[in-house]
């Protein structure tokens, strides 16, 4: 089957734009392509329309079955001759090379599905202001807040997540045989089937909130003679302070506090950020600004201690720095000035 060149390119761009991690250079090329001809624009809009209609397709289709089919040898043979490799830039398609490459790809895919089935791992990160959810093969869902990165590794006995930086909400699917463990620096959260939120501020400092179910929080960040030490080889995990939390409880772990205070919290409030909203109740401006700064490259600085203590109430969208600035601009005695990309708030 022969395809028109710009149709191939359109499909190629469609898939590239849906990846969620297109680079600037890639988007630049895409704009060039769109601006090259109205035909390209028309073709891309056709795909947009098609995409809408495809929403009604395969409602009951079983993906596992398809994956199994792809692994069958006779399928690889069928798969090969028809593969198209639409080039990003204008390039003459090399047919033989393409066919050989696609047979190789099909084989890799077939082998890959066999081997990787029992193990699953990936590194996921969000940019400033980004919010992203991933669903894992076990049915668990992890939602990443702004500027967050985590690595997960699942095998037959363990589900391990390393929260490298930032904040994430974990909706853990119940699986008695495989504990779900989140490590955040020197702190570790263990769960079976539950839903909880972890905000890692540093290797030592984290806030854990349980929305539902029960988790065990264990910290190896201990204070000895004012010196913070992490876990060492001869440390028995059982020596580490640990605390059990249930739904509606929050714990804030700080390096210099051995006593771990558990505070009650509304579960709705704890997961509020997933709706891109934050409610402030009698919160000092210092905290509000710190929250907003997490979601934006351009930073706000409060240059006055009294102002930093000013209390704020209301529901805000943390992604919309403009809203907070507008609010502050109309407040009496508050001065907002831009310094480069950033904003200084003073009196």
């Amino acid at each position, binding site marked *: 089957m022969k*395809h028109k060149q710009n*149709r191939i390119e359109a*499909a190629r761009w469609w898939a*590239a734009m*849906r*990846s*969620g991690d297109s680079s*600037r250079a890639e*988007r*630049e090329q895409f*704009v060039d392509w*769109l*601006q090259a*001809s*109205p035909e390209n*624009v028309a073709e*891309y*809009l*056709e795909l*947009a*329309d*098609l*995409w*809408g*209609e*495809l*929403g*009604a*397709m*395969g*409602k009951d*289709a079983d*993906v596992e079955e*398809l*994956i199994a089919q*792809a692994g069958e040898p006779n*399928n690889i043979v069928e*798969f090969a001759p*028809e*593969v*198209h490799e639409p080039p990003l830039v204008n390039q003459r398609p090399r047919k033989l090379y393409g066919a050989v490459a696609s047979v190789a*790809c099909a084989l*890799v*895919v077939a082998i*890959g*599905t*066999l*081997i*990787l089935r029992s193990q*699953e791992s*990936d590194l996921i990160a969000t940019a400033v202001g980004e*919010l*992203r*959810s*991933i*669903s894992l*093969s076990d049915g668990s*869902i992890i*939602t990443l807040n702004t500027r967050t990165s985590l690595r997960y590794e699942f095998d037959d006995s363990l589900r391990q997540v390393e929260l490298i930086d930032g904040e994430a909400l974990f909706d853990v699917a119940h699986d008695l045989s495989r504990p779900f463990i989140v490590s955040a620096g020197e702190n570790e959260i263990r769960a079976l089937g539950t839903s909880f939120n972890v905000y890692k501020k540093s290797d030592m400092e984290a806030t854990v909130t349980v929305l539902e179910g029960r988790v065990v929080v264990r910290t190896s960040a201990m204070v000895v003679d004012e010196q913070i030490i992490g876990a060492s080889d001869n440390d028995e995990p059982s020596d580490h302070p640990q605390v059990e939390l249930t739904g509606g409880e929050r714990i804030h772990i700080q390096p210099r506090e051995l006593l771990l205070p558990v505070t009650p919290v509304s579960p709705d409030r704890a997961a509020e950020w*997933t709706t891109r909203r934050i409610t402030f109740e009698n919160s000092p401006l210092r905290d509000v600004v710190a929250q907003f700064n997490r979601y934006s490259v351009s930073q706000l600085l409060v240059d006055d201690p009294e102002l930093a203590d000013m209390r704020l109430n209301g529901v805000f969208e943390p992604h919309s720095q403009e809203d907070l600035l507008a609010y502050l601009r109309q407040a009496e005695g508050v001065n907002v000035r831009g310094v480069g990309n950033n904003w200084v708030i003073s009196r």
Partner: protein
Amino acid sequence: MVERRRSVEEIIDQRYDDLLHFVRYRIRDPDEVRDLVQEAFMRLLRRDREHLIERPEAYLFRIAANLAYEHRLRSGRFVSDMQCADLDDHSEAPEARAAEQERMQRLDAAFARLPPLPKAALLLQRRDGLSYAEIAARLGTTKHMVKKHLSRAMLECRAAMIEEHR
């Protein structure tokens, strides 16, 4: 839970869906569709390049959706109230409905013919809203291959619809 999984892009896509659909079904004259695309193209050229590069797709969809809306306003001016009712979604002309049905049948057939992995990738993305990384994990492959599968699925569906149309 499902709500939380939808990315902002998807929500935007969905809103534009209706209006892009409108481009095809409400503007039945091919010349008018061509004019609309031409105008979308011109607006795209005039748009500040830096902005375009940030989110090219969102800008294109917004331009097209606006044009479709403008077209609706323009054409709506000249019809009576009775005909206006005809423009409502649920009261399409019978021949248009038949054409739409035929189109969906063609798409159905093309979709059924898709090779397993492109089909799986498409389902996981379009139907289940998974990210490329998640799809790659499910299919035991790389994000790069997911992109290829998806692009192939789109190309096959698109091509099938045109060929059989002629």
